């Protein structure tokens, strides 16, 4: 590979674009002259060719460090903030980590890692670096239990969908996401901001939603992404009034018709799209027609280098945007012999469209019959007075288990709980098989959402 074929984040950060920033709740850093500045200490020159663990308390320093070391280091491993520290030793061994970039260097002094580079603000002037290699980006899967798997990506693969969609027209976008940028969904948005010539407003752990939205408005956010659970929480909070993005994106969970319609109503001037992506398979596709599911015509090869097929109901993807491997000594194969990643996301063809029905591993068993909780939630969520719901199984002495549903009502619906319960049950009976109709509906004030922004499913 010749030197000029390798591209790195610094290639998108020339000084010619003025007014670009990356900010969190406390700091805003100009991206315009970022290449002639550094947030790393003087040991940064020793990072060349190393396998680097990025261990930062916040997203801003993580983003700045990614910009600085991409194209310099052999590998960088991104650690989301909720990573269980017990898993670090295994991950460090599997990723052959020999350097840490951190804002807490004391924590790493006695760990046996040869090089610890500290990172902090403010940025200071420095000689711009030259790209030396194509860095391997290591991302952790967000499975619910056990040591996460390490998925190996390249910047080229990670940015495949961004390049395919082309640059946004008009004013450069100001991107925001409810995700953490150290997860696949959040990293996509960070890369969109950097590669698309825009700015980035980061989320802040523990910040109240109303304060977050006020900050998004104050910074002029025009493009924003989150999971359907993130968006339902925002719609419920009443904080969305006055916020007027141009593009609203959902990913990471099934975007049902109710949340798409809710967002179209709350943001009449925005285009609302939902995307399918996973840490392993990369970005599969985006759907912008305002309808749940996706056109059946997307199955098969497409011109952006993504090929999809459905095997036993599960969506399988072969793509240049997919991770190239799981990294580690005992790592499993990421793809089948033909190069397809089995996503485990189950789809169903109705007419000329595929609909997501749930996760293969999330099936609940009701008296021997298999049920995806998501298909029940999609029906419940269609009720105008419902904001969010979670279906799950509950042990029953009679049938082994039954379906129960926890439901959050809108403010308008709160006074009519009994009536709404009957309406929901009758909706469910009209469109679901009888064993899928919830036996008990409980009205709750809140539902747990995981750090990855997905509805917590303890029994899944």
């Amino acid at each position, binding site marked *: 590979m010749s030197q000029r074929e390798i591209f790195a984040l610094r290639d998108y950060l020339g000084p010619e674009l003025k007014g670009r920033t990356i900010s969190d709740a406390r700091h805003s850093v100009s991206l315009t002259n970022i290449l002639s500045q550094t947030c790393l200490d003087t040991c940064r020159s020793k990072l060349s060719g190393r396998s680097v663990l990025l261990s930062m308390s916040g997203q801003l320093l993580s983003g700045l460090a990614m910009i600085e070391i991409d194209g310099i280091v052999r590998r960088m491993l991104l650690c989301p903030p909720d990573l269980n520290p017990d898993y670090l030793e295994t991950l460090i061994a599997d990723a052959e980590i020999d350097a840490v970039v951190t804002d807490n260097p004391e924590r790493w002094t006695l760990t046996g890692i040869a090089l610890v580079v500290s990172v902090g603000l403010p940025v200071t002037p420095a000689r711009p670096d030259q790209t030396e290699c194509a860095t391997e980006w290591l991302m952790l899967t967000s499975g619910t239990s056990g040591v996460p798997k390490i998925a190996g990506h390249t910047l080229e693969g990670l940015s495949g969908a961004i390049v395919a969609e082309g640059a946004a027209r008009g004013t450069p976008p100001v991107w925001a996401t409810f995700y953490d940028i150290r997860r696949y969904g959040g990293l996509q948005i960070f890369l969109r901001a950097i590669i698309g010539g825009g700015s980035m407003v980061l989320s802040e752990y523990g910040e109240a939603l109303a304060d977050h939205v006020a900050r998004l408005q104050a910074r002029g956010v025009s493009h924003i992404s989150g999971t359907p659970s993130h968006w339902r929480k925002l719609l419920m909070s009443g904080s969305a009034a006055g916020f007027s993005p141009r593009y609203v994106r959902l990913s990471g969970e099934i975007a049902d018709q109710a949340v798409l319609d809710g967002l179209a109503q709350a943001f009449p001037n925005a285009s609302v799209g939902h995307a399918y992506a996973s840490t392993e398979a990369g970005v599969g596709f985006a759907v912008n027609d305002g309808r749940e599911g996706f056109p059946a015509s997307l199955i098969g090869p497409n011109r952006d280098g993504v090929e999809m097929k459905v095997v036993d109901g599960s969506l399988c993807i072969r793509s240049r945007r997919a991770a190239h491997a799981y990294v580690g000594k005992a790592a499993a194969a990421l793809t089948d012999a033909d190069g397809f990643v089995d996503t485990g996301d189950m789809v169903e063809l109705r007419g000329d469209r595929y609909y997501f029905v749930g996760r293969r591993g999330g099936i609940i068993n009701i*008296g021997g019959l298999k049920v995806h909780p998501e298909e029940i939630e999609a029906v419940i969520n269609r009720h105008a007075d419902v904001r969010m719901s979670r279906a799950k199984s*509950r*042990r*029953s*002495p*009679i*049938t082994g288990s*039954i379906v*129960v549903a926890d439901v959050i009502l809108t403010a308008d619906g709160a006074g009519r709980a009994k009536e709404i319960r009957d309406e929901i*049950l009758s909706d469910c*009976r009209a469109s679901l098989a*009888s*064993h899928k109709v919830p*036996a*008990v509906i*409980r009205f709750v004030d809140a539902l747990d959402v995981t750090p990855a922004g997905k509805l917590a499913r303890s029994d899944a």
Partner: protein
Amino acid sequence: MKEIAAEQKVNLPPLTDDLSLHETGFDSLAFAILVARLEDDLGIDPFTISEDAAFPLTVGDFVRAYENVPA
């Protein structure tokens, strides 16, 4: 039981103590729903608490199963 009968579209005969549960027209799913809702309302599920609870045969047995649970 009437609420669930209406939901499940079951024609419930007049409920008497010696009516057999089979004759109520309730299937196992309807009973599972009944037991779950009673557990939510009363805080008890006599069929799970007691391993040797005989499964009731009549409406009267069913009601007694709840009456016999220590409060």
